[in-house]
Every structure is written in structure tokens, then in C-alpha cells.
């Protein structure tokens, strides 16, 4: 097994003005192996989104380095193999669902027939086949989340990066998404996701990392972490780790 994600000493300081700074991430180290589902947890503002954004080259780190699939992130070609779902995804509201997939397919340079076939498949996978000709302005929050997932899978990525993939979904959608992710794992894909749902993370993630104030406070398999910290439940573990960090 080889590391799909390799993060070394990553630090992000947001400069608000000359004097005011906010720490987004501090000396963050992480390796995620191929075929793993890794769950990022942490209170609001702990740096989860910051980490994912740096990994995708949307913002630049103050310090440190990120390697994905053996390549540095300033190499745009890596992104051919990454699927990304941002938190609260929002898309071009003047496009229809299938127009959106078509547009992203062109950005990925997919051949016309592949693009069409995958769009059709994915639209039914995420349960949007019926509304594919409706403009996104009229989609509900959960429907946007679903089309976002379809977009993230369009290029058949080796690595999936998902920022709170099930936050806006109904219970059925949440279950479907979890099953979908487990299926993708079986295909050998690597998944990094952030979430606030402990039960969800518990059910699908191989390893977890707990973040607070930009620092990675704990990382490993849930069972081992519970034993290590001498707590019974995931919730207790989370609260203990975050409370101890103040």
C-alpha cells in the first residue's frame, strides 16, 4: 500500500489585517493510504475546510507541503484523479442538472460518449434522473448536495475529497450516500471526508482524525483510540479530546 495523501507540517495563517491573524491550521501532518476511508472530525472552525481547500490548491499554505498521488498540488494534472464536493455546494443556477455535468465533463476533457454515459449513470445513482432537465435554481438543498456528489464522481476519481457530504441529506439520502462510499472503497478508491455525524463516521471510516483549533489532536482507528483514552463511546472520546485542548 502506498500513501495517496501525504501532508507535512502544513500551516495556514489567515491574515485579516496587519495585526490580526487567525490560525486555520497548525503543523498538520497526515498520511492516508490507498483504499482507505478517512474521517476528519472537529468542532466548527477547527480547520477541516481549510485543510481540504489547501489540498485542492484553492488557497495556499503559509508553510508545509501536500503531496497527492505522488505529485505536488501545483501540478494541475493531479486534479484529473480527484473528485471534490465542497461544503454547502452551490452551482450555476442557470444550468440544468445535465448541463452542469456536461460542463464539468468538458473541463475534465472526457470524450463525448464517456461523458454522456457517466452523466446518465450518475444522475440515476444519486436519484436525480427525473429532474435532470430542471435548472439548479429550483433544486432543493439536498438535491444540490446530490448533484454535487455526481459531479465529484464524474471523472471516476482515485481520490474523493468530501466536505460534509451528508449534512443536507434526508435519512434515506444519508444511507444511500454511505452505501455508495462503501461501494467506492471496494473499488479501491481512497476517500477523505469531513463530518459532524459521529455515527456516520463510526460506521464507514477506517481511521479518523480529530482536529481542534487547527491542530490534529488524535489520529487512528476508532477502537484503538477508545482504548487509549479509556472512554466508552465515540462521543465521549470526541468531547474529552476537544475539552482537554483548551
Amino acid at each position, binding site marked *: 500500500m502506498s500513501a495517496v495523501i501525504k501532508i507535512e507540517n502544513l500551516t495556514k495563517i489567515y491574515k485579516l489585517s496587519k495585526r490580526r491573524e487567525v490560525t486555520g491550521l497548525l503543523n498538520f501532518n497526515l498520511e492516508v493510504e490507498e483504499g482507505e476511508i478517512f474521517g476528519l472530525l472537529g468542532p466548527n472552525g477547527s480547520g477541516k475546510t481549510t485543510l481540504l*481547500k489547501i489540498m*485542492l*490548491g*484553492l*488557497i*495556499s499554505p503559509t508553510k508545509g507541503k501536500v503531496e497527492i498521488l505522488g505529485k505536488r498540488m501545483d501540478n*494541475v*494534472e*493531479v*486534479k*484529473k484523479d*480527484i473528485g*471534490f464536493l*465542497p461544503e*454547502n*455546494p*452551490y*452551482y*450555476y*443556477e*442557470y*444550468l440544468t442538472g445535465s448541463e452542469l455535468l456536461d*460542463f*464539468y465533463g*468538458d*473541463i*475534465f*476533457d472526457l470524450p463525448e460518449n464517456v461523458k454522456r454515459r457517466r452523466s446518465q449513470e450518475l444522475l440515476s445513482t444519486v436519484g436525480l434522473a427525473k429532474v435532470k432537465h430542471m435548472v439548479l435554481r429550483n433544486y432543493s438543498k439536498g438535491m444540490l448536495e446530490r448533484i*454535487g456528489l455526481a*459531479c465529484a464522481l464524474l*471523472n471516476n476519481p482515485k481520490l474523493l*475529497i468530501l466536505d460534509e457530504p451528508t449534512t443536507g441529506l434526508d435519512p434515506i439520502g444519508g444511507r444511500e450516500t454511505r452505501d455508495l462510499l462503501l461501494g467506492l472503497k471496494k473499488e479501491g478508491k481512497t476517500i477523505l471526508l469531513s463530518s459532524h455525524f459521529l455515527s456516520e463516521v463510526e460506521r464507514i471510516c477506517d481511521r479518523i482524525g480529530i482536529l481542534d483549533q487547527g491542530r490534529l489532536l488524535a489520529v487512528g482507528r476508532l477502537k484503538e483510540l477508545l482504548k487509549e483514552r479509556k472512554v466508552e463511546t465515540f462521543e465521549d472520546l470526541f468531547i474529552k479530546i476537544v475539552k482537554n485542548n483548551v
Partner: protein
Amino acid sequence: MYKPAVIAKNSFKELLRKKGLQVLLVFGLILIGSSRLFSFLTPGEEMKMIKDVGLSTIEFFGALIVIFGAIGALSSEVEKKTLYTLLAKPLKRRDFVLGKFLGLSLATLLNFLLMAIFFIGLLLFKEHTVSSGIFKALILILFELFLIAAIALAVSTFASPAFTMIFSLFLYLVGHLIGYGHSLMEQTESALLKAAGTLFYRIIPNFENFNIRDKVAVDIFVRWNYLVKTIGYSLIYIAVALLIGIYFFQKREI
């Protein structure tokens, strides 16, 4: 497909579906049409007015549409966070900016053609002929609009939408007045003021170069040579503006 073309196609779609810009276009058309109100003038003067007002309207409303379009082109993607998803894909930021410029230029061309065809139709209706001067004036206006598009887009890569709008409108005004300003500066005694004036004059594009409507309205001949030179002038400015835009956009935190 060439990546900037993919972006261009999408932003062209967006611009066409924008209500505000359509309203501006309708106003422009009404104004061009209303130049017929000058029929109380003698026939010769009436034609002169129609040409002058028509060309001025195409230029002014064209500029407004371009500036508003350019502001939205980037900021709507930033505000609505559609950029997150887009730039997480294999798309160079350079290609994104180029694509936005192409899409904006395409929408500008379409708006321009609608107004120009309406204007030419009006002239044909009145005079049964259109002089080559009119076409030359229109071509120069089109390149002026492309230039404004590039500048407004470049500014919007690092500035807020409000700043971009104010700056672009300001530049549009100053760029038209700069000829006068320069001749005023020539007369000052202060060397510093003179140097500053000359520097300004060299940096800010002189939009009056694109204005030949005074000549065209009274049928003074403008050489093709002048057109080629002025178009070259605009292309240089466009290239520089785009380079600046790409430079800032590459550093931008999304």
C-alpha cells in the same frame, strides 16, 4: 475542447441569461431609435445628429454592458462559490481568466451587433446608403469595448465588485478626457506635474483614439491605416490587461 473555450461558452450562457444587461440593451436600442426625433432639423443636420447620437449610444451603452458583465463574470463565481468546484478540477487559473474574457467578448460582440444592425437599418431607412465611415467607426467602437472588457476583468481579479465598477467607469471617463488633460498639463510650469501628466498619459488608454464619429458624421474620410494602428493599440492594451489579471488571479485565495 480548448479549456478557455469551455469556460467562455458557460459564461456566455450566463451573460445572456442576465436580466440587467438585457434591460441596458433595450435602453440602448430605444435611444438609437429615438434619434429620429431630430426631424425638426434640416435634412443634412438631421442625418448628422442621427449618426452622432447612434454611434455615441452604441459606444456608451456598450461600455456599460461590458463593465457590468465583467464585474459579474468573476465575482458571481466567487460569491456563489462555484469557483471552489471549478478550480478543484484540472483547470489552470490562466485558462479560467482567458475563458472569462472570451465569453465576455462574445457577449459584447452579440450586444454590439444587435445595436449596430438596428442603427444601420435606421440609416438605410433614412438615406438608402451607409458610408464606409460608419463601418469604420463601428469597428473602432467594438475594439474599444473589448479593451474595456479586458481592463474591467483584470481589475475584478483583485478588487471588489464595487471598486471594479467605480474604477472602470472612472477610467472610461478619464480615458476620454485624457487628450484635453494632456494639453492642459503641457502648459504648466511645474516639472513634477508635467512628468506626472506625461506618465498618466502614457499609461491610461486614450479612448478618444477610438472616436471618429465627429469626422464620420460629416463624412470626413478616415484612412484604413488609422484603423489598423488603433486596433493594434487596443490589442496591446488587452494583452497587458489580461496578463495583469492572470497574475493577480493566480495569487488569489478562493
